[in-house]
């Protein structure tokens, strides 16, 4: 388990460094997704399977898709097709693909050696759920409120300029 952790930690750290040094935003996003997946492995080795699943679903899934959508909106232009062709060279996707392949190997190892027993020191997801809806119930309500505020705020901020011009007195 220690080897799995150190491999995943190295991938997470290396991919994170690659994120902040890339010149192209899409390449940085690829590395950021790999980094988040590696951190999900770290969570699993730490004994937090629920958080590991949420890291993949919400962070690497939903939030990164939001980034990709914003990038697509920003990058509208005639040069996008040529740019897209340039992006699909092996030199660009081999880095993230290699790191993701190591993670896949770890996943295969975990599935093959799984004996149907819980790890020592792991926190049961049931406990997390029970704590979330009893002790932290107020926090859950406030979280739903902040999401609503973000929804309204993002809709208001991202409107087209023409609409804002018409409503201006």
């Amino acid at each position, binding site marked *: 388990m220690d080897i799995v952790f150190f491999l995943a930690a190295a991938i997470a750290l290396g991919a994170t460094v690659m994120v902040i040094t890339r010149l192209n935003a899409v390449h940085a996003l690829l590395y950021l997704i790999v980094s988040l997946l590696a951190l999900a492995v770290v969570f699993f080795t730490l*004994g937090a399977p629920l958080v590991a699943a949420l890291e993949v679903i919400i*962070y690497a899934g939903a939030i990164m898709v939001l980034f990709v959508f914003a990038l697509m909106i920003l990058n509208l232009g005639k040069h996008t097709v040529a740019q897209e062709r340039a992006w699909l060279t092996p030199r660009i996707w081999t880095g993230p693909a290699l790191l993701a392949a190591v993670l896949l190997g770890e996943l295969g190892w975990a599935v093959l050696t799984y004996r149907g027993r819980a790890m020592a*020191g792991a926190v049961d997801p049931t406990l997390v759920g029970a704590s*979330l809806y009893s002790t932290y119930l107020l926090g859950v309500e406030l*979280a739903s409120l902040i999401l609503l505020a*973000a929804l309204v705020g993002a809709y208001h901020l991202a409107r087209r300029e023409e609409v804002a011009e018409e409503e201006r007195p």
Partner: protein
Amino acid sequence: MTATVSPVLVLALAAAIFAVGLVGVLVRRNLFFVLMSLEIMLNAAGVAFVAAGAMRSQPDGQVMFLFIVTMAAAEVALGLALVLQLYRQLHTLDSDAAGEMKG
């Protein structure tokens, strides 16, 4: 039975990733990369919470991680909307271009 890794190691990893994210915020001038670095820092804070919770085998750290993810989602939605609006007005993602208060 395989044991879990030491939470202290994970805390060190969280600190390292947080430092990388901080460097990203300070060094990059492209607002898109600044937002991504902010995500890295928030995520590192979440990792630290989960590690601290794992030290005592309590679920509280994981609950805090859920709240951090919620806040990160809200922050990203608002931040990207602001970046879109800035790009429409200034036609650049350079953070220094937005240095003047006058719209």
